[in-house]
């Protein structure tokens, strides 16, 4: 048997490699798409790409099947039957655009706020936001409100950046890495690459997570925390670190507001605010000359404790004095928090000891001289090699904002922010709060046929910046930036449909959604949301939400509820830009952005959504989209990417600017820019000079670089805000001491949640329900091989997660007599679902969990009706209400963080009851159909190349 046919070992893989950017999730890796015979042969990671360095996850490799999914929409659709009936008629683009133009034009002329434009997993927010601003509606946001605004806002308000896309652990140098609440993340491949690196170096990886999936499975130590108590654990670590004097005093004085003086005048409107000089500079108390001087005064030796008299006779106390007294309180001792967190005092003490030991006994130094913003020259960068990362597990609780703040405070106390071995900023971050815009959307900010006077989203610096009317009523439909959710920096998309349906604060005319699955896995109370979309006003016979436009490439559950469907292209068929103006992909040592371009042709009657939006902008004659004679400024999105300027010389892409393409950051538009990107692998990368690599918040070379690149027009150093004056202003309003005064109904909530120092309070749903009636937590985990709703139409990925089960801790199974595969009811204050059980030993003892968004509605995603995703898969969403249970006075608050409005998905409390024999999960819904192609009965992808 030795004579074997010769195998062709050197068969060319493809005819051509087209390099572009993945969009199978939000990680935005570089991909090499191999094209053979005009068809995709293979997709692999781009080795040169700064995000993924050649690797690629399951989703990325499965892009072939997403490209060929039968769920793709193929032509514009107009609804011709009742909503949800599945009766649509294909129409031409001319007709679709004229319908959309007419609906939107009417709204813009009569009352622009009656358009609510919300985008889901949109990677073109700098365009969609700009468009909405030019349109003039105050009602625009993306999906951050139900994703991770707590993480973003908590970080930006504390250190001028956050985990997530704002920075990353120093994977090459960290010696202790602590991760809170991450199953899978935006940074999916970099986290995997980083964990591997640090484990190979023998660094320690601690995961704090109620559930031991994915990343946690390889952690050296897994801390199975009870959901919603991370903040308490962190403050207990702070307690221990303070007690052990494991803090970096020099770092605190240099880079934080630890020495700033806080006015101590209870009962006055300035109590708890910073003492400032005549120019508004915060004061510190200088201990040699014994007088208050502006912070940053050369040679000053500021006090960190004491009570000092100011020149005006008032007294003031340094931030650190408040901080030390607060967190040394016995209520934060490891023993005191053990019952609430479920973590033993020994473990907390051990983790604190490790953090302290590694930060101070294993400090590292990078031999690179640098100059700080005070002009002081340093010989090296000193690093405390302890790093942290956190995400949704912290973010999606109603106490998540303060928990995120607590974690950043911990990092600052040990001197580990943007140092070697610590958490490192990625440009354009850090960025001080003051450099972010204020929100716009008050009545005086918009009007008939005119643009909004500024950006929708931003950060209020106090109650005076809220978007409310004279009576304190919300200006925005989602009530963002109102007393309900004052620092709702990303809006509250999860409240849009409920509020529009209720006409509270006002009804709308057009709901315009892009890539958002609000009729299914992206809404709380899914069944209720569907009913709201279907409900008509009895008096007029018109739908309560009269017109719905949905733009998407795929037949999601939400498309079935559209009145007008604008079919998008896939990510391999269109231009896109991953922009510094939006959500960047920079790394700690490089500034990066990227593009997508059509690497395969769309053979359906579809158009790229961004080009459609630009076309609509021209039809509506929006400023910025038409020239002075009313002619369209841009032919399509590609044209916009190259030629749009936000400020002179600053456009969507930072690379290859200038007429000759040699400028980075600032420069004239370059007509060849996209070609240059394509030649470069569809990304651009500018190295940050070595002396600007660390301490970016206070590094003169970095600040100069940031100005040169156009992130800012003047240097914007950041002082870490351990004490938040902005939060204290809200408290003063709630105490009735400061104008504008908070309405009575909001005062208790604000006093509880807006503490100027990070704090912990029990998650609101847990605090509102009877804990013995609902003794358990139920949460979701994001599966690595799936990205929410985008995975199930993919023939390969759905074979990995075809149906989800409810993982139930073994002890609970035993107590309830449940075996693997049995059916159970999961009951919350809002509803109940019937699910199939899987027994687990790797979950917090009070926590049930399941994979996120595997359950699908029949009829959607181009799947057959009887698929496991619909028959046995399920959503937890049915158990979660967008409102908290009623209070004694009947009022119901939004189920959100009271500071930011972040949807509190993970606060859910439940009980479990055996359900007896069953064959399908409940609730079941009638099919939600949308016309799509029909999937094949069998796939043999690439069979033609087998010979």
């Amino acid at each position: 048997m030795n004579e074997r046919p010769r195998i062709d070992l050197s068969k060319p893989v493809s005819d051509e490699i087209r390099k572009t950017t993945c969009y199978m999730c939000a990680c935005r890796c570089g991909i090499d798409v191999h094209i053979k015979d005009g068809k995709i042969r293979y997709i692999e990671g781009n080795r040169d790409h700064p995000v993924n360095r050649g690797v690629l996850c399951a989703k990325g490799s499965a892009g072939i099947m997403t490209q060929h999914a039968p769920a793709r929409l193929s032509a514009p659709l107009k609804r011709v039957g009742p909503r949800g009936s599945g009766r649509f008629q294909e129409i031409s683009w001319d007709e679709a655009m004229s319908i959309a133009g007419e609906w939107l034009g009417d709204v813009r002329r009569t009352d622009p706020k009656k358009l609510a434009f919300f985008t889901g997993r949109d990677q073109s927010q700098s365009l969609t936001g700009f468009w909405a601003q030019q349109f003039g509606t105050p009602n625009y946001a993306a999906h951050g409100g139900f994703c991770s605004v707590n993480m973003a806002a908590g970080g930006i308000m504390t250190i001028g950046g956050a985990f997530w896309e704002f920075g990353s652990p120093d994977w090459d140098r960290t010696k202790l890495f602590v991760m809170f609440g991450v199953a899978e993340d935006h940074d999916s491949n970099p986290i995997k690459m980083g964990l591997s690196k640090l484990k190979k170096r023998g660094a320690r990886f601690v995961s704090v997570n109620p559930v031991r999936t994915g990343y946690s499975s390889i952690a050296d130590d897994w801390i199975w925390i009870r959901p919603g108590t991370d903040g308490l654990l962190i403050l207990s670590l702070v307690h221990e670190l303070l007690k052990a004097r494991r803090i970096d005093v020099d770092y605190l004085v240099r880079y934080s507001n630890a020495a700033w003086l806080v006015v101590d005048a209870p009962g006055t409107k300035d109590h708890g605010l910073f003492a400032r000089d005549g120019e508004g500079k915060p004061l510190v108390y200088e201990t040699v000359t014994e007088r208050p001087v502006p912070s940053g005064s050369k040679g000053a030796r500021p006090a960190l404790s004491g009570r000092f008299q100011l020149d005006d006779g008032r007294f003031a106390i340094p931030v650190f004095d408040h901080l030390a007294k607060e967190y040394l309180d016995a209520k934060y001792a490891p023993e005191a928090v053990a019952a609430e967190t479920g973590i033993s005092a020994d473990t907390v003490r051990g983790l604190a000891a490790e953090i302290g030991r590694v930060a101070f006994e294993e400090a590292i130094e990078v031999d690179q001289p640098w100059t700080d913003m005070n002009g002081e020259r340093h010989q090296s960068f000193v690093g405390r090699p302890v790093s942290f990362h956190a995400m949704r597990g912290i973010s999606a609780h109603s106490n998540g904002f303060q928990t995120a703040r607590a974690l950043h405070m911990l990092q600052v106390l040990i001197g580990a922010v943007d140092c070697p071995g610590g958490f490192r900023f990625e440009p354009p971050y850090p960025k001080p709060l003051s450099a972010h815009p204020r929100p716009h959307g008050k009545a005086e900010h918009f009007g008939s046929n005119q643009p909004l006077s500024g950006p929708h989203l931003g950060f209020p610096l106090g109650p005076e910046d809220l978007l409310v009317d004279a009576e304190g009523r919300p200006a925005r439909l989602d009530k963002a930036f109102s007393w309900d959710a004052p620092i709702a920096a990303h809006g509250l998309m999860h409240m849009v449909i409920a509020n529009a349906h209720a006409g509270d604060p006002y009804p709308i005319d057009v709901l315009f959604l892009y890539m958002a699955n609000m009729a299914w896995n992206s809404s709380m109370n899914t069944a209720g949301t569907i009913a709201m979309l279907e409900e008509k006003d009895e008096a007029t016979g018109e739908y309560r939400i009269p017109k719905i436009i949905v733009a998407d490439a795929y037949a999601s559950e939400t498309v079935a509820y559209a009145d007008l469907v604008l079919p998008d292209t896939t990510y391999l068929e269109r231009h896109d830009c991953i922009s510094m103006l939006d959500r960047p992909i920079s790394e700690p040592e490089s500034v990066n952005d990227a593009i997508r371009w059509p690497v395969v042709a769309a053979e359906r009657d579809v158009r790229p959504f961004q080009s459609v939006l630009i076309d609509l902008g021209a039809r509506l004659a929006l400023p910025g989209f038409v020239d002075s004679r009313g002619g369209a400024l841009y032919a399509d999105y590609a044209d916009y990417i190259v030629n749009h300027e936000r400020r002179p010389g600053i456009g969507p892409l930072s690379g290859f600017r200038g007429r000759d393409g040699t400028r980075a950051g600032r420069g004239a538009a370059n007509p060849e820019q996209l070609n240059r990107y394509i030649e470069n692998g569809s990304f651009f990368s500018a190295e940050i000079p070595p002396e600007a690599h660390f301490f970016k918040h206070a590094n003169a070379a970095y600040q100069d670089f940031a100005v040169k690149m156009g992130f800012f027009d003047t240097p914007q150093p950041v002082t870490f805000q351990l004490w938040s004056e902005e939060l204290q202003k809200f408290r003063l309003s709630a105490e009735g001491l400061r104008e504008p005064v908070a309405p009575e109904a909001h005062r208790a909530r604000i006093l509880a949640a807006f503490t100027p120092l990070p704090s912990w309070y029990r998650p609101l749903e847990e605090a509102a329900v009877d804990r013995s009636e609902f003794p358990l937590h139920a949460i979701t985990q994001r599966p690595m091989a799936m990205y929410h709703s985008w995975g199930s139409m993919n023939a390969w990925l759905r074979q990995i997660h075809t149906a989800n089960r409810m993982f139930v801790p073994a002890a609970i199974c035993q107590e309830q007599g449940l075996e693997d595969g049995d059916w159970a009811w999961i009951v919350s204050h809002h509803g109940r679902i019937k699910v199939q059980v899987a027994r687990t030993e790797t979950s917090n003892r009070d926590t049930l969990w399941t994979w996120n968004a595997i359950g699908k509605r029949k009829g959607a995603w181009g799947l057959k009706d009887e698929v496991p995703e619909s028959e046995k898969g399920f959503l937890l969403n049915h158990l979660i209400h967008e409102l908290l249970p009623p209070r004694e006075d009947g009022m119901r608050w939004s189920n959100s963080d009271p500071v930011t409005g972040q949807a509190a998905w993970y606060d859910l409390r439940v009980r479990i009851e055996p359900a007896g024999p069953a064959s399908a999960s409940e609730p079941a819904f009638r099919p939600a159909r949308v016309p799509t192609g029909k999937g094949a009965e069998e796939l043999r992808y690439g069979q033609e190349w087998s010979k």
Partner: protein
Amino acid sequence: MTSLPSESTPKKLGLVIDLDVCVGCHACVISCKEWNTGGYGAALSDQDPYGGAVSGTFLNRVHSYEVVPEGGEVVGERGEARIVHFPKSCLHCEDAPCVTVCPTGASYKRADDGIVLVEEDMCIGCGLCAWACPYGAREMDLSAGVMKKCTLCIDRIYNETIPEIDRVPSCVRTCPTNARHFGDLADPGSDVSKMVAARGGFDLMPEQGTRPVNKYLPPRPRRNLASSAPVQVEDTSGARGLLAWVDSMLDRI
């Protein structure tokens, strides 16, 4: 019956899989599928791909197991209850029972590099090899009616049309945690052999006597947090001691 090479092959190409860093992301599973469905032999088909009975041919799969060693629960830090993600594909055994059982000679082990392959033209789809393999590493392609298995990406590893750095199996190239390594396990000086020696790489089910070429690296030992002792400092009661200490630190700045 088909014979194995009479002597040990001069090269033993195979994989070393590091269970210490595998997070179970399935990147290797899908990368393998997309490479091989358009690569050596028949496509890897999928049946009822958008329906209820969906199934397909995969040459590499990841199984996840919960492991609770004897000794019970450690409250607080449940260090003992683990999840192990276990990627599994053909192990290219030296004593490959799938080869010797093959009635047509379709299954064979290459004499020069030890790769176990199926010559699809000769395969009658009887399934005996899948039955003989103790690892369940072979999958019958329902559409082609032939047995499919890991080829170690034989059409990549010797492929002179792709950059040398890419001449590794697709699963190895894509793995985000670098848990998969490819090389010659017959050469004690190769990176993979050194890794196996240093980390105590082990054979899967050695009692089967198949002498697999592929090796697994066990999770590295772990340390308990509770055993990290806190630092002892003098007066730690209340804020006074700390603030005095901070003052003394300030004098040193």
